[in-house]
């Protein structure tokens, strides 16, 4: 049940936050052993928060539409007093003394934290196979990956192990798993949501956003977490609109652009068909759709794999065994302590990216790689600027393929290609959403992406909502017990 329906039921007295929370916890206990969506289940914490919400509903003073909503948070978001591992051995026992701003804001809105969702280590990956602890399985086909890096919360929402959740998106890590799991995933504008308390991967690319069963929930969650934060200088001061209130405005009169570069060779023909069918639906809802060109798109992914690792190599330098997290004992000196700790604490993908990032920032290579990547990033941004001179929104496929099997993409480059349509919105910081737009013949979800102008989350949500309401996809559920 979506959050907005659940909390309406609370208000009508049909159920209570505690009852709902207990039901979710029971479902987690029953299914998560197989699914692997959670790294930590915060049962006591959740029941306490639910009891508080019960009292507010009883008193007739709920905090708002999220009061008592049971949520799953990606384990990259710091939670005070609750282990925050980032899917890494390095932070296996790290308990932050502070809440991320988004966590604090959702708590203030009455949300109930069910637990911390599984993820690729330090958010580096597209399958949640690179979690140091366990893989997460796709609820639609347990042999397949849920996508990544926010595979845990995406799978939890899809499988009904949470009413909604938060993920992070540095190179598609919300939208790609949302597409793979058949849920709604929204990456807001860079700066729309505070990054304070998000364990950094690529600081200029990291975004926090919601996973939801439908677009209305995504709108409600975004409103709760968005807005200026004195702890994050990159957070924008723009006022936060009531996104949910704007949803019913429909698509009439909106101009949508369909980028040529997002239909590539090697793309799954089922996805091509589903997206083109979705475009017809959108057109039928009163929008005009025209072809646009974003010529820098083919370079965006390569550029991403310069900038993101560069920033990661810097952000992950702090894990040295000195202050917190893992320290491998027995070292004779400082260098040995840090080397052994980092050798044991980081997985292969993280090490690969640290090495890559260190290399592209090194003297002699800095300009050729990092410097050029920044220039290409500007070109990608200019493409969108030009397109948005003509259209209000971009509509595009979310992924070139549906969820793949565990172990299928062992070649890192094949894995990276999964995010080819996702990365441009991270590089430009533009808001983008993935909504379900159909299923493959094997019954695997397909995602449709809308990308908007900076700070036009309202437009993106409104288009996604119109499409969602005109199609049945969001009502389908995976065949789980």
């Amino acid at each position: 049940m979506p959050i907005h329906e659940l909390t309406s039921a609370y208000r009508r007295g049909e159920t209570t936050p505690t009852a709902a929370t207990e039901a979710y916890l029971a479902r987690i206990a029953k299914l998560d052993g197989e699914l692997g969506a959670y790294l930590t289940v915060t049962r006591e914490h959740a029941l306490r928060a639910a009891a508080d919400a019960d009292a507010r509903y009883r008193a007739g003073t709920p905090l708002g539409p999220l009061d008592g909503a049971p949520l799953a948070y990606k384990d990259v978001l710091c939670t005070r007093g609750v282990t925050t591992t980032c899917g890494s051995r390095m932070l296996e026992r790290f308990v932050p003394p502070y809440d991320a701003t988004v966590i604090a804001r959702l708590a203030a809105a009455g949300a109930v934290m069910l637990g911390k969702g599984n993820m690729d280590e330090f958010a580096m990956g597209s399958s949640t196979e690179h979690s140091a602890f366990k893989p997460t399985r796709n609820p639609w086909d347990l042999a397949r990956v849920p996508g990544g890096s926010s595979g845990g919360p995406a799978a939890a929402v899809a499988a009904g192990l949470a009413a909604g959740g938060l993920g992070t998106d540095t190179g598609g890590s919300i939208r790609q798993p949302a597409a793979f799991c058949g849920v709604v995933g929204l990456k807001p504008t860079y700066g729309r949501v505070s990054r304070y308390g998000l364990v950094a991967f690529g600081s200029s690319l990291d975004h926090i956003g919601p996973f939801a069963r439908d677009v209305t929930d995504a709108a409600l969650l975004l409103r709760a977490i968005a807005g200026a934060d004195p702890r994050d200088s990159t957070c924008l001061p723009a006022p936060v609109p009531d996104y949910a209130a704007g949803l019913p405005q429909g698509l009439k009169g909106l101009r949508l652009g369909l980028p040529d570069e997002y239909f590539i060779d090697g793309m799954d023909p089922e996805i091509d068909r589903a997206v083109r069918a979705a475009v017809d639906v959108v057109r039928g809802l009163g929008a005009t759709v025209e072809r646009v060109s974003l010529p820098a798109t083919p370079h965006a992914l390569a550029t991403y794999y310069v900038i993101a690792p560069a920033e990661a190599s810097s952000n992950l330098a702090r894990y040295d065994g000195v202050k917190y997290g893992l320290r491998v004992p027995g070292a004779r000196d400082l260098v040995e302590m840090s080397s052994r700790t980092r050798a044991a604490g980081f997985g292969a993908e993280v090490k690969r990216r640290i090495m890559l990032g260190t290399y592209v920032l090194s003297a002699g290579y800095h300009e050729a790689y990092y410097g050029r990547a920044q220039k290409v990033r500007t070109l990608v941004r200019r493409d969108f600027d030009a397109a948005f001179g003509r259209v209000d929104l971009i509509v595009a496929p979310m992924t070139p393929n549906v969820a793949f099997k565990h172990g299928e993409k062992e070649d890192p480059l094949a894995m990276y290609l999964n995010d080819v349509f996702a990365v441009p919105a991270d590089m430009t910081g533009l808001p983008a959403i993935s909504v379900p737009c159909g299923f493959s013949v094997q019954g695997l979800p397909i995602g449709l992406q809308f990308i908007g102008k900076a700070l036009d989350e309202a437009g993106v949500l409104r288009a996604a909502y119109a499409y969602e309401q005109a199609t049945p996809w969001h009502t389908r559920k995976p065949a789980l017990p």
Partner: protein
Amino acid sequence: MSTMTKPSYEVVIGLEVHAQLLTRSKMFCGCAATFGAAPNSQTCPVCQGMPGVLPVVNRRAVEFGIKTALAFDCRVNPACRFARKHYYYPDMPKNYQISQYEEPLAEDGLLEIEVDGTSRTIGIQRLHLEEDVGKLLHEGTLETAQASLVDYNRSGVPLMETVSKPDLRSPGEAAAYLRAFRAVLVYLGVCDGNMEEGSLRCDANVSLRPRGAAELGTKVEIKNMNSFRNVQRALEFEVERQAKALGAGERIVQETRLWDAERGYTRSMRSKEFAHDYRYFPEPDLVPLEISRAWVDAIRAGLPELPRARRQRFVTQYGLPPYDAGVLTQARALAEYHEQATAALKRAAPSLTLSQAAKSTSNWIMSELLHVLPADDEAAIREAKITPSRLAGLLKLIENGTISGKIAKDVFQKMFASGEDAQAIVAREGLVQVADESALAAVIDQVIAENPKALEDYRKGKTAAKGAFVGQIMKATQGKANPAMVNRLLEEKLSKI
């Protein structure tokens, strides 16, 4: 000077000065930035570099940077950017330092220095802001310690780095630059200038080149010079070392050397091959800092009087000799001390001209106060028990003839130690000058009578014998005799004999 021993080479020195800013909170978080608290008591997730935290720029630190930049006539850039500087060290919690690199706060300034009466203008290349690192504490020595502890209280304290152009031509000039630099910072109130506590730190780049050459020689960076004296000593040593090496036909290796103050030499720390690759890139957690003209103008309007201007004013307003003005204005507290004492003396002794009062206080400050307190110890001068008004009280007693200058020196010592008023000490110890003609005349008669030998000498034309009489008279009156009156009466008596 040792630099003169190898006249065939020209010395080229540039200084990098790090100054801790006197802000209440740290550069990127709200923790207190004060010195001396219990280890790790002034820390938070941000300055401990915990996962997920973000820096937020301290506006006051930027203001202090702009203030300093304006004092050095720098161009304050309309936009600047922070950058990450990477290297691994456990006192640096993130293993990168947030600094500024390609786009500093300010550039192209200058500082006038004076060495041996000649003034020179030294260029300032850039001024930027960054964060300080923590401190490592070892049990025992670094070599024997079983473990090291880290105190992050200093981590994140605002630092301002100012890089001079390679315009300094001798260790003496370098020391003069550092003194003048420090004085400006202290005048501005942006740094306490304490080198021993590390709130002011200096690294130097030193190279030699054949006289007349346009190209710079290979430079060596010198670190760990924690006092003005050490800066001069270290640079003198290094210049000598390089001159010897060059003279012997050796090549200078580009490297970083540490000054060992105890042993009096510099030793190699790391060579160019092992130099850090800092992998700078713009700090993505901070937006570029835009500095409005209006803000710069407001800060400019609020700038205090700086050492050079004050020195000039001391000459024109008080009629002080340039030398006095230079000594008195070298440190803010000292200059303020002089002005307050002068004003108090002028009030207490209205018959004095402003210039007389100023010169009188100047003399006493230079000969007495600076004899017991270092000129650049701001706190000591500000907190001296002999306050400016007490010094004026003492000088007034000299002016009105109550005590002699000689007695006043003793009284000064007592006032310095106890903080009492001059009047109280003089009254209690009966130091009032004997200026009663008949009483003095009797003493003089007695002294002449008791010293027939001196009288004889005097008669033979040895006028020096007169001095012996004066000494005896002062001794007999315990120094309280009015010297002018003694001279006059003695003259009269001797001429009659």
